[in-house]
């Protein structure tokens, strides 16, 4: 099972994660990022606007996805993180690697 991939512009794939990002859904996210990159969407945004919770398993899936995208010459960015997700990113010092953007549209605007 995987999350749907929406298109943004010509080569950005947006993966919307609803609900919890934990050990139950981590592999689902990893598979979806691999699908996106494998079908040419090398720039991936994980839209966390409707993500209610993330723990270290979810963070591990984001890091896995980031490596998958970068290995293919692309990148993975995150958008719409709530306070709990930001807390986990900051405590783990990963907010510098996975910089949180406000919206999917702004993630690759630079």
């Amino acid at each position, binding site marked *: 099972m995987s999350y749907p991939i929406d298109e943004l512009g010509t080569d950005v794939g947006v993966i919307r994660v609803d609900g919890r990002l934990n050990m139950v859904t981590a592999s689902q996210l990893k598979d979806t990022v691999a699908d996106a990159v494998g079908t040419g969407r090398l720039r991936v945004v994980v839209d966390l606007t409707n993500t209610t919770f993330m723990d270290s398993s979810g*963070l591990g899936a984001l890091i896995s996805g980031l490596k998958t995208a970068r290995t293919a010459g692309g990148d993975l960015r995150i958008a719409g993180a709530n306070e709990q997700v930001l807390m986990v990113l900051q405590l783990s010092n990963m907010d510098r690697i996975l910089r949180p953007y406000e919206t999917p549209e702004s993630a690759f605007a630079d």
Partner: protein
Amino acid sequence: MKPPNRPSPTDYQAVIRSPPETVDDAHDFLNDVWAQHPDVTAEERMACETILSELVTNVIQNNPHREIFCDVRVRITPGEVVIETSDTGDEAPPPQPTADMPEQQAEHGRGLPLIYLLADDVQHRWQDARNIWRVTRVRATEPPQ
């Protein structure tokens, strides 16, 4: 999962049986607890939910090929929230108290450091063939009037 047993207004318990239950059942249990405790702040809820998710995830991941029972207990007082888990899994190695994160590319190994960063006290013991974790989060105190 059985409905939460509530022996007192501040003491909540549930049993997670995995499989088929998952860490999601621990989240659902905690949501039931918070529904009865509007006094627990959003920050305290975030911390406690993250701690409990990491504890239960570790139990399930450390016992991938067997059924485990994980008793979860949450006690709330004006001064602290205490989260206890007691599981029937293999004996966990004594945890190394560390808040140090693994290297940035690592996809695993952040759960225990997160617990230590979010908790004010972490205890683990092996007793009666169970791993027992007791994690305490001190609550924010009201500013003096």
